[in-house]
């Protein structure tokens, strides 16, 4: 029973952190940025009318409100029915499906940001293009111990899976787990490569700002690789001890901690806004 209550509390936390706290903070950062850097002084920051931007942010807000409502409804149904599982289904499936649902507003905001930068590039009439004549290298942005931690966590996960191949438990998927974590690492590695050597999406961004942004994104990608492989190893260990429910709780807590960390590293106050002036 206690683990049911713990799951409800953690699920409530997941709803609050990912669909209320984080979006509210993001909107706060964007609104503060717009207030401190008005269109008449920083026209290049606004390839769109302020009203259009506000309307898009409102849609983001509505999407999140909808997600919160669905999440609270799932929680209410579970509590009213005194169900062992969330909404009477498999906890893990509900948590995963709901997480995907929670990502939709983020994807919407990401797509809008992509379009915004595309418009900035189209409006950029500057015929001079500047670049650094130094190569960017991975270790300019992250430390070797941090990357070693990612390699270690991958190794730990692989060793854990290999152990359970020898001593399997009910529901163990086998070597597919290694394939899954390897695909994840390959994807994150590709993301790092694109961030290091890929196209510059904001045509006005200074080298310093780009360097700060690259550092943040690469750190987050490596951190998510570390978290994912450790989570997989921990969930296998818990599943082998017949403690799958605790794995779901840890999974949700992991995500919430990650979102908190993302917000901590997302800062707009260091950005050089002078490039957006007339």
């Amino acid at each position: 029973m206690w683990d049911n209550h713990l799951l409800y509390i953690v699920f409530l936390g997941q709803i609050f952190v990912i669909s209320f706290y984080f979006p509210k903070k993001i909107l706060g950062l964007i609104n503060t940025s717009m207030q401190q850097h008005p269109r008449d002084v920083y026209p290049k920051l606004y390839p769109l009318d302020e009203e259009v931007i506000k309307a898009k942010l409102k849609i983001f807000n509505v999407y999140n409100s909808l997600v919160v409502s669905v999440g609270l409804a799932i929680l209410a149904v579970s509590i009213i029915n005194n169900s062992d599982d969330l909404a009477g289904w498999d906890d893990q499936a509900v948590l995963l499906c709901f997480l995907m649902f929670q990502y939709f507003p983020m994807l919407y905001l990401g797509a809008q940001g992509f379009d915004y930068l595309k418009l900035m590039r189209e409006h950029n009439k500057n015929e001079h293009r500047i670049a650094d004549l130094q190569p960017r290298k991975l270790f300019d942005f992250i430390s070797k111990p941090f990357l070693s931690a990612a390699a270690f966590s991958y190794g730990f996960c692989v060793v854990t899976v290999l152990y359970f191949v020898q001593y399997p438990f009910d529901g163990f998927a086998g070597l597919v787990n290694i394939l899954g974590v390897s695909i994840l690492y390959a994807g994150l590695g590709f993301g790092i490569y694109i961030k290091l050597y890929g196209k510059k999406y904001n045509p006005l961004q200074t080298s310093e700002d780009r360097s700060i942004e690259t550092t943040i994104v690469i750190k987050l990608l490596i951190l998510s690789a570390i978290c994912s492989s450790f989570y997989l190893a921990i969930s296998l260990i818990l599943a082998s001890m017949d403690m799958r429910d605790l794995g779901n709780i840890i999974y949700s807590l992991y995500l919430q901690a990650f979102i908190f960390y993302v917000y901590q590293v997302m800062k707009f106050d260091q950005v050089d806004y002078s490039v957006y002036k007339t």
Partner: protein
Amino acid sequence: MKISVNIEHSNPLFTQLIEQIKKAVLNNDIAAGDALPSIRQLANDLDINHKTVAKAYRLLERDGVIQTKGYRGTFIHQNAKENSTINLNEWVLSELDKTLTSFRELGITESEMRIAFNSLINSRHN
């Protein structure tokens, strides 16, 4: 050290890149052995075609200003400073001028020279 190109300038982009890298070498802004960005990085940062940067790098390597060391990357050549002062295009022009003058003295017409030059170029292509 920054590099810039003017996309509206009459000089081709690869020429602008070559000139600026040579200038940076002559001004000691970059030294022998210094690493240069990869073709992909520079092309993406300048938002220009990869082939343009590749062409500039290829011509700089031919001129002995840079050298490519396989997967390790591209570096400034040890003799880059001396080699940056040599302008192969000017040398080609002066050599052609001398040859054309000697042909003219022998009474060869301009159209005969053009036909001969084109057939030579075409035969090398084939």
